[in-house]
């Protein structure tokens, strides 16, 4: 692999995305009889930064859960780089994805959770190296070496040997981000990653996301309530309500002059709740 081009000032330009295209085609999902996604269709280009916003219960998180193979859709098709996530071809027949197929597909996808989901029984560095060692058959020394690099990326180089329960929420979330990055996914999913954080810890996490998004050509899908950040970070914003896409477009259009009444109502409520839509996160 060749080194990415640099601008001579020490920062690298993101390499062009190798892959990471996502397509939802008429995807349906219900939990316990309640429809959450209703013939949902949208697509994400390779390397695109997408923010998904909408009221709770609108199906935002479900999108990520289906894509992360945590839940199986009831109908429709999800394609990753043109390949079906939940179905596979066996001879002439199209059959539900086997565990093997899912393993293969998961190599492209990483996810960061609202509640971090760190492993409490391992130190920070072991949290990060576990999966590369087990799933990529990486030597432990190499995995540790690389893991340190990812910790540096998220500003936690000194926490290598710390236990998760000694960290603040913001630090935990940054470790979780480093852990996900260590598998070098082409698609990263962020599920309301600042919702469980104390307000003063939100910024450090969002800053990390911002810098990752600048440096890497990954596709990133971010489900969030941080409207200011969504506006800043995203190439495109999707507003969802009732399990369907109500409106999508560039951030300035969605936040500045939304065309749909439902979008306007939602944004008004968010502003009334004290969120700042205006600009870069302060």
């Amino acid at each position, binding site marked *: 692999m060749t080194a990415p081009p640099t601008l001579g000032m020490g920062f690298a330009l993101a390499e062009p995305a190798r892959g990471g295209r996502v397509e939802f085609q008429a995807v349906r999902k219900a939990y316990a009889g309640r429809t959450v996604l209703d013939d949902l269709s949208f697509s994400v280009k390779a390397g695109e930064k997408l923010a998904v916003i909408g009221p709770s219960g609108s199906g935002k998180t479900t999108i990520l859960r289906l894509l*992360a*193979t*945590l839940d199986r859709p009831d109908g429709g098709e999800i394609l990753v780089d043109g390949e079906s996530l939940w179905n596979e071809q066996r001879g002439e027949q199209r059959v539900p994805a086997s565990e093997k197929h899912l*393993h293969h597909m*998961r*190599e492209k*996808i*990483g*996810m960061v*959770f609202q*509640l971090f*989901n*760190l*492993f*409490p*029984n*391992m130190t920070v560095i*072991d949290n990060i190296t*576990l*999966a590369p060692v*087990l*799933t990529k058959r990486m030597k432990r020394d190499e995995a540790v070496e690389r893991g340190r690099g990812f910790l540096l990326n998220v500003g936690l180089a000194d926490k290598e040997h710390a*236990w998760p329960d000694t960290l603040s929420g913001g630090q935990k979330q940054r470790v979780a981000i480093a*852990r*996900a990055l260590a*598998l070098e996914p082409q698609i990263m999913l962020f599920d309301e990653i600042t919702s469980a954080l104390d307000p003063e810890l939100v910024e450090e996490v969002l800053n990390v996301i911002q810098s990752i998004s600048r440096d890497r050509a990954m596709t990133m899908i971010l489900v969030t309530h941080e409207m200011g950040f969504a506006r800043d970070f995203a190439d495109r914003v999707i507003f969802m309500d009732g399990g369907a896409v109500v409106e999508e477009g560039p951030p300035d259009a969605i936040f500045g002059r939304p065309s749909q009444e439902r979008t306007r109502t939602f944004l008004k409520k968010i502003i009334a709740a004290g969120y700042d839509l205006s600009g870069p996160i302060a």
Partner: protein
Amino acid sequence: MSAHSWTEYLGLMAQGGIVTVELTLASLAVGTAAASIAGLARISNRAAVRAASRIYIEFFRGSSAFVQLFAAYYLLPFAGIYLSAFACAVLVLGLNIGAYGAENVRSAVLSVRRDQYEACTVLNLTRWQALRRVILPQALPVLTPLFGNNAVELLKATSIVSLITIGDLTFQAQLVRFQTGDTIGPFAVILTVYFVLALAIGAGTRALTRLSRRASVTVTR
């Protein structure tokens, strides 16, 4: 009344005590293996594996250990299977306690929060890798106190083996009783011995629990 005092038989009862300890430890080994296998099988994603485990558990929990012991000792030979009395006892007691332990293993594994499983899925670990490196280390500290309970139950249950001619603590006490006509003496002794053994198991379990808390963080290496 016999001329002999029951205290002359203390050596005999000590022998019985050793048999009881041996029996408990051997059955515990069988039981632990059975509980681990059946407990994990209970949460397998294969229906046949789950069903097999269920049948084992229900059978051993749902019938009397006493009857199982008789069946193993007196009926298995008709099926061409000849086991020593000790082997029969270890098998029956072990499988019995294993059936209870299996439910403990299952509930301990399920006590680990769902988000841990989800993190494993997203990190693309196999089910087995997730279980071994993430789930079991966290389930272990939950499991060890339950394991201790079962071990004490097992210790007490060993007394039924006296019925198939094994010279355990209870068997020897009965023997002394028949020889000397004294009931209170020998039974007071074995009551104390069982109690002390149970205390020892309790102490062992607490040590094991402390250890498992520490092991749960190092076992992942």
